[in-house]
């Protein structure tokens, strides 16, 4: 390293600035300051403002989206509840309808059965009566003819004949009954 001679050393005072020292220090600093004032700090602050705006914008957007989603959810929940109660109502209605139909059918069937039974009974009764009347008249005339032949006496007197037939039939019935009782 080259040093000035010792004699020169004593003349240097580091606290006294040389003109060129001040000139270059001032020039350099003013250039730096100019760039900071004109470019660096403004673009830095602008970016910070943009960033703040972007963050605020995003927060607002997110809030809005959340509100929307909540409203939709509420709406869907309400609709779902409506649909559920509607379904329950329809089911209940159908069940009642079914019950009613079954009861009706049952009633109709019972009535039909009763009608059929009654008709059959009436027919049977009628036929029985018819048969009995026919039988009575046939058996009566047959018995009288037979008896007339036996006793040689014509039982022309109708009143008498009817009385005889009746008595005969009653005896017959009684003997039938007695026989049946003895058999049992």
């Amino acid at each position, binding site marked *: 390293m080259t040093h000035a001679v010792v004699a020169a050393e004593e003349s240097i005072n580091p606290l006294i600035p040389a003109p060129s020292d001040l000139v*270059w220090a001032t020039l*350099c600093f003013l250039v730096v300051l100019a760039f900071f004032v004109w470019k660096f700090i403004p673009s830095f602050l602008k970016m910070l403002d943009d960033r703040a705006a972007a963050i605020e914008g995003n927060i607002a957007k997110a809030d809005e989206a959340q509100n929307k989603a909540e409203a939709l959810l509420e709406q869907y929940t309400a609709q779902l509840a409506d649909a559920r109660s509607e379904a329950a109502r329809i089911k209940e209605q159908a069940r009642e309808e079914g019950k009613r139909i079954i009861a009706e059918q049952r009633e109709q069937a019972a009535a039909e059965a009763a009608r059929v039974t009654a008709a059959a009974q009436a027919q049977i009764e009628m036929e029985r009566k018819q048969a009995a009347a026919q039988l009575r008249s046939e058996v009566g005339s047959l018995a009288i003819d037979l008896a007339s032949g036996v006793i040689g006496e014509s039982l022309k007197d109708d009143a008498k004949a009817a009385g005889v037939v009746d008595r005969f039939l009653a005896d017959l019935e009684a003997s039938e009954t007695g026989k049946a009782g003895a058999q049992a």
Partner: protein
Amino acid sequence: MNLLVPAAANDGQTFQGPTIEEFFPQAVLFEGTPFELNRVMLIRILATIALIVLMWIGTRAMKVVPGRFQSVVEMGLDFIRVGVVEDLLGKKDGRRFLPLIAAIFFFVLFMNITGVVPLLNLAGSSVIGVPLVLAVIAYIAFIYAGVRKSPKLFFKNALLPAGVPPVLYIIVTPIEFISTFIIRPVTLTLRLLMNMIVGHLLLVLFFSATTFFFLYAPAAFKAFGLGTLAFGFAFQLFEVLVALLQAYVFAILTTVYIQLAVAEEH
């Protein structure tokens, strides 16, 4: 032979300690004019260009979502904006003085850091011009801030502090005057200048001693070279810290002076 006495003849055989000459190298251009360029001035110009280029790249197209380099530049600017300016001056005054304080911080930092940059190895702020010019600018800034706000209040707060019996103003006012208007710029200048001068002298001392011990000292002394090398390395790292710290101190003191000047009452 006394090893530590600087010798006039630097023949390599005797130890030559660093002198104040270190900071006044020979002129390389424009010798004798006010624009005389020597090594220190060239280092200043280089540091200035480096600062502007780096900041330009970092702030050229700032994005809301920063890239890597922008993040680093942003961290530096935000450190000054939040940690120094807005913390002391508030948002409103802070925005007004942010460009000045940020320029002071980064300018001092870049001038200081050249002291540990290999091949430069000399701080741009180790010659009085930079500290003095910055101190004058800080001085103008805080007086401007105070006078702009309210001249009456500024000088009253500075010279006639509240809560002092009026009789004592005979003593207090001259003390306050000296401390505010004379001591402040002087301490700003000397603190930075002396830190940089001493840091550089220490590094030169350690590394030239290492060279001397390894190459020229008697065999018995050669081991000392390891010690001086280790210290030199440690101080090199320490100088990085000092460079940052002095830039921070300069910026925060300027801000504090402005804050005191615009305060309603202290």
